[in-house]
């Protein structure tokens, strides 16, 4: 058995007096699809931010594919093969859809400092192929500011994929999307994840999406891991139902 894709031990983070993460342990195996759910303020996004290097934890350790993170900057974590999307989609809004994808290809080409425009032209076909794969090739010349929220989320996911990550961290990939686009996007995410054998960790509020996609579910509450198990175990767990009702009610 290979080592886990992600291993988190005793992760702790406080913002002032607010305990966002309270000694969190989490192990995600390679190729696993893991959902993280929980009421607002449970620490889900903070956890994703620590995994992605955006936030440094006060205590505890994070290992990605056996390599321990030690205050690396986000771009260094990205180079270890961790790709992430944000709760509010994060793209290059003044560029075209095509140029956004071109940026992703350029970033992983290893020669981002080159002055040769020819290098960019050579990436053109691969960029279009990637846009086709996420069904955005028809919008290639649109400025990202002008495309819909759902398409931006899709583009962000596509850009992350283009950097060839081993671990995907998706923070609410379907937030703010319509029901249909929501399922289209998650189907796309699942298809790619399985095809490439990626490890997927995603935070999600839509319970339908969670139960459709996840192999294992981690329930967080008040900064800690409250329960963990197969979808059917979580569904049957009355304590989980209580915190959901208690947390939002």
């Amino acid at each position, binding site marked *: 058995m290979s080592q886990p894709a992600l291993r988190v031990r005793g992760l702790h983070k406080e913002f002032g007096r607010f305990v966002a993460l309270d000694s969190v342990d989490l192990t995600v195996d390679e190729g696993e699809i893991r959902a993280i759910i929980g009421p607002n303020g449970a620490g889900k996004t903070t956890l994703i931010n620590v995994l992605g290097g955006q936030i440094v934890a006060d205590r505890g350790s994070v290992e990605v594919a056996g390599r321990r993170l030690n205050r690396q900057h986000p*771009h260094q974590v990205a180079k270890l093969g961790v790709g992430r999307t*944000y709760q509010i989609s994060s793209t290059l809004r003044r560029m075209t859809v095509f140029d956004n994808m071109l*940026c992703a290809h350029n*970033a*992983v*080409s290893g020669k981002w400092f080159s002055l040769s425009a020819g290098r960019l032209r050579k990436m*053109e076909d691969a960029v279009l192929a990637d846009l086709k794969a996420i069904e955005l090739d028809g919008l290639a010349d649109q400025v990202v500011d002008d495309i819909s929220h759902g398409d931006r989320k899709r583009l*962000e996911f596509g850009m992350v994929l283009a*950097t060839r990550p081993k671990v995907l961290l998706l923070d609410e990939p379907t937030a703010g999307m319509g029901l249909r686009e929501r399922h289209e996007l998650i189907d796309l995410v699942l298809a790619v994840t399985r095809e490439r054998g990626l490890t997927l960790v995603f935070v999600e509020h839509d319970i339908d999406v969670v139960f459709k996609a996840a192999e294992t579910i981690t329930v967080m509450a008040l900064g800690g891991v409250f329960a963990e198990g197969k979808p059917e175990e979580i569904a049957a767990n009355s304590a989980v139902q209580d915190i959901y009702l208690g947390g939002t009610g």
Partner: protein
Amino acid sequence: MTPGDGTLRDSASAPKRGDTYSINWRLVLSVVVLQSILLVVSPPLVVFALIEVMIFALYASALNLLLSFSGMVSFGHAVYFGLGAYGLALSITHFDFPIALGIIAGPLVSAFFGLVYGILCVQLTAIYAAMLTLACAEVTFAVVFQWFDVTGGDSGISGHVPTMLGLEPYQFGLVVLCVVTVAILMLWRVVYSPLGLTIRAVGQNPARAAALGHGRKSVQLIAFVISAFFSGVAGTLFGIFHGNVFPDYVGILFTVDGLLMVVLGGLYSFGAGIYGAIVYKLLDNLAAHYFEYWQLVIGCIIVIVVLVSPSGIAGLVRRIVSRIGPRR
């Protein structure tokens, strides 16, 4: 194609995207030829104005690399402009460089200070970084102004290089045209290359760029040094043009001139510095000629332009071209 059949575009007939990054040689050549003719046929006073416009077009274009593309604001860019002129002067007066070597030294001094100050400034972001660029500029100005033994203080340095290298105005104008054209083409190469794409990605969204694997600080530092270097080229030319250098060259007024040109020209467009320099210098010369309170007039015009077309002159030009140009 019937209306409303849902076809957005025929992808086969779409322009090749890589072409956006190519230099429009026909345009470059026309501008150079036109400008050469203007320089040769115009009376000296007009030639002087044209030379100034070209030098400032380069300075503003270098500043524009930061403002429009790298996501940084410099409130002290005259430092890199002025230090080009000081680099030229000091390398000749204090290190006995021949003039040719001094001309090379000017931009390198600017780039060096761009590196030193840049390392400090990229540690911060947004308005904090901008304030630090201002602080660095104030320190530089104070040193240049007060270190009398070396810089000549308020009276500056002159006589180290013959004004316009001893050439006729139109001849010097042609030299400036060559240097500025090559420099602006090099800036174009920077912006529309893998490096430029990286700079623009970091400038637009540092978080996304980081998730793609780009560190903000190193990328912004590279942009800062390149911008300082080309500002230094402009400053060196300016020093040769006037045959002197004064503390004003690193002062706040030259900084503001550059910023105004870029904003007037239109942020987020490559041509901002060029359009801005032409219009600003034209206003500067004309308004001063016809109005007593000419700065007030310029100020009002800038306010109107920014309100009418937030994308500046570049935005206006784009709109006009798209209206009269061929439809695709």
